[in-house]
């Protein structure tokens, strides 16, 4: 029997060898794949147990930090500024994951992307995992100015530095308190989130970067860009006839001016007073293809490379939509029909005009430091795209300054500072008068520090809101707050 027993031993050894091979496969070969699998909750649980870096504003206010608590997890995330920075920081929830900077900079905050610098021999024996601390480009004073100026109204404000791409304010109203989503009591978290989802004002929706709206007359900057770049229009030619309505081909519904007024003139003049009839004609003259090219130049159809998750692209209708539909070309030229943009995209549009046609990559994080205070990563300005030639940009800059000097945005006039702007009033065409109010603006024109887009959402309850009257003062408050910041440059 012993020979059989010996053979049995060989069989068992072979079976165990197979187990060993399979273990190697699971432990080592497939490990990375498994760890990255979406059904694997170990990573988020680990992040919950571990120290996590702080997030502070450009002016040094802590907006997210981890505190030691007695709870199911050792640490709890805290947002001292409540809802003010929720559109930027996002939240850190066990049940619902993470959002905002908490998500896009998770690796830095937990220290996983930070190389441990061996400073002395003792470091070799301690599991020293430095966390990364993040400094935002957003300043609390600017963010607060935006939030206060917008008040209880639904809408969004995005302000960027046109030269560096640094985001100075990113506000969506109403906002939410990220503390409610980041607490440890998961049934309370679920209830809080449900209440936010049930709120008709949609506080969880980041209007600044994730929602598209009709841009209205602010889009006329794109139409003017197309006209200048194709040579269809020069600063002096043509002079558009003074009309109160533009007859459109193949329809008996003419294009009218705001409030039924009459307007016309050269490029500067028609931008200054936001003349629908002139821009409708300009759109028909340059054609759908040139309009689409100009929009694509500004980034329509492309997701802006902002360092926040789930940013959406602005949209311009596909060219087929204009086949045998010439009125749509005229409507698109004044920002109606199917043209839609995020407030972020509109801020980048103002930035392109004042920055010689170049759009710098927008970023909300200025730098990452390790726990010893050493800088690990810093925002370096990089061009995202060129929207137009610098001659076109200079002309549009002059035209937008004209809008502030004597057009629809005189509310932005600031002594000693050359401010440019373009207003927009996007009529919604529902029952009764209702419109979104827009303004895009920049300042100062000679050494640009801020480009801003303000969007105030309209519905049946708000009635007609014009860009200059409703959105203008908000942009003014933001520009004043940016100009009041200490100059970082020596």
């Amino acid at each position: 029997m012993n020979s059989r027993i010996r053979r049995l031993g060989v069989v068992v050894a072979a079976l165990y060898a197979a187990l060993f091979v399979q273990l190697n496969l699971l432990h080592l070969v497939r490990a990375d794949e498994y760890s990255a699998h979406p059904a694997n909750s170990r990573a988020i649980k680990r992040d919950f147990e571990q120290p996590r870096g702080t997030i502070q504003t450009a002016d040094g206010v802590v907006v997210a930090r981890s505190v030691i608590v007695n709870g199911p997890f050792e640490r709890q995330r805290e947002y001292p500024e409540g809802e003010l920075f929720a559109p930027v920081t996002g939240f850190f929830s066990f049940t619902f994951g993470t959002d905002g900077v908490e998500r896009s900079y998770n690796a830095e905050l937990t220290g996983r992307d930070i190389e441990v610098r061996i400073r002395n021999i003792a470091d070799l024996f301690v599991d020293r995992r430095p966390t990364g601390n993040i400094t935002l480009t957003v300043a609390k004073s600017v963010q607060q100015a935006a939030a206060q100026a917008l008040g209880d109204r639904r809408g969004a404000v995005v302000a960027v530095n046109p030269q560096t791409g640094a985001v100075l304010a990113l506000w969506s109203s109403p906002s939410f308190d990220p503390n409610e989503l980041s607490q440890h009591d998961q049934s309370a978290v679920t209830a809080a989130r449900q209440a936010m989802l049930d709120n008709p004002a949609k506080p969880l929706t980041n209007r600044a970067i994730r929602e598209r709206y009709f841009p209205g007359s602010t889009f006329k900057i794109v139409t003017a860009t197309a006209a200048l770049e194709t040579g269809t229009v020069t600063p002096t030619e043509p002079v558009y006839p003074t009309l109160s309505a533009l007859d459109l081909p193949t329809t008996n519904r003419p294009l009218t001016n705001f409030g039924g007024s009459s307007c016309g003139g050269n490029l500067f003049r028609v931008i200054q007073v936001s003349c629908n009839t002139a821009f409708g004609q300009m759109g028909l003259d340059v054609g759908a293809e040139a309009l689409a090219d100009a929009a694509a130049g500004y980034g329509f159809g492309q997701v802006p490379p902002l360092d926040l998750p789930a940013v959406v692209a602005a949209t311009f209708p596909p060219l087929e939509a204009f086949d045998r539909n010439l009125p749509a070309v005229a409507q698109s030229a004044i920002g109606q029909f199917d043209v839609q943009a995020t407030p972020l995209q509109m801020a980048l549009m103002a930035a392109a005009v004042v920055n010689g046609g170049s759009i710098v990559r927008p970023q909300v994080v200025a730098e990452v430091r390790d726990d010893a205070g050493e800088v690990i990563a810093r925002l370096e300005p990089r061009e995202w795209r060129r929207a137009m030639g610098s001659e076109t940009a200079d002309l549009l800059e002059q035209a937008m300054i004209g809008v502030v000097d004597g057009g629809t945005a005189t509310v932005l006039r600031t002594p000693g500072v050359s401010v440019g702007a373009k207003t927009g009033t996007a009529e919604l065409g529902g029952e009764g008068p209702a419109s979104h109010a827009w303004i895009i603006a920049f300042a100062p024109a000679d050494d640009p520090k801020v480009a801003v887009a303000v969007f105030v959402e309209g519905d049946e309850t708000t009635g007609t809101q014009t860009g200059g009257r409703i959105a203008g003062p908000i942009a003014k408050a933001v520009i004043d707050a940016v100009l009041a910041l200490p100059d970082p440059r020596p």
Partner: protein
Amino acid sequence: MRGRPATSRRNTELGLLVLAIVTTAGLYALAGLGHNASLPANLVPLLVFFCALLVTAHMAVRRLAPGADGVLLPIAGLLNGLGYVFIARVDEDLAGLQATWTAVGIGAFVATLVVVRRLRDLDRYRYTFAVVGVGLLLLPLLPGIGRNINGARLWVSLGPINVQPGEAAKIALAIFFASYLVEKRDLLSVATFRVGPLLLPDPKHLGPLLIAWGGSLVVMVAERDLGSSLLFFALFVVVLWVATQRAAYLGLGGAMFGAGALIAWNAFDHVSARVRIWLDPWPEAQDAGFQVVQAAFAFGWGGLAGTGPGLGQPTIIPAAETDFIFAVIGEELGLLGTTAVLAGFLLMVGTGLRIAMRADGAFEKLVAVGLTTILAVQSFIIIGGVVRLVPLTGITLPFVSYGGSSLIANYVLLALLLRISDRTTSLSGGPPRPVAAGERAR
């Protein structure tokens, strides 16, 4: 080790037991530090408790089986301790119960050594073991006391305690198979029947094989317990093969197992679900495949050296304290830890087979083969199921998993193996045994 003095074997055992205790205590302390950043409050009492238990077992072996193998008890103690540490990671209360079960298990170990002075004595109770074994196996089917837990009907309620009688049945049946086959093996090994290249025994002697097969199917169908079913059938076929030395039984057994598996796969949803998840668990990662997928994550998360004791997340996997304890070890100790566990089982199996080879009587040989096969097959099918090498069949990992029935049965199994190894020494020229002398005087 043949011919080494019994005291040397015992001293080896004591030294290895100290190593097992130190390793367990170290892991337990580290797990406490890792999880709570403090030493476990019950570290010292627990250490004293385990020391006392293992020293009791050791002293019992010293007195009752002084020439027995010196490696099996320390390995079992180490696996038991390792299991305790990781059960405590999953559920502190269960760990307390497991400590109690360990004490009962050691008690059963000592009692077995006391009661079974010569293994051959058991031969006389052949049919008692058969009836007890089959009875225990079918006990959960009795209305009133049988209970379904997690879809399998392999539990019996005795007052507040739930018992898995199948764990005891496997030992009783191993003894019965050995006893039965010692007598019938000559008859069963005569090949008279030729099918193609295979020489088969007379069909009328195939009865026992068919009964074992049928019994396994009953367990699988009625109790929905795939693991035990496979274990019993494998046990019978292996012992039959070793007893008769006829490979035809292996082939025939394998074919019958294949046929049974095929029928079950077609006829029973719970079997086909297991196979489907074995082949590809990913589409069902959130429901039916959750357990194996999470186990795979645990192994991957553990990597080479593991997260460290106390630093993993063992509570994610359902049944982490029983069937999936191996995945918890994989997460916190990594490939190094799981390989150590594999090596532990392989050492036990190797030692068991060596004991079988050195045993003198055919009955002792076959019992040793049967008991070792139980250890080998049971650990292989549960580890293989957890690492998705074979379809998952829920069964405990001997000595490691939480469970009183399993722990007690395995300590009895261990005592029987030690008893067989001791007979070997005393009959093959080892030193005279004072106890054996006393036996003769009685």
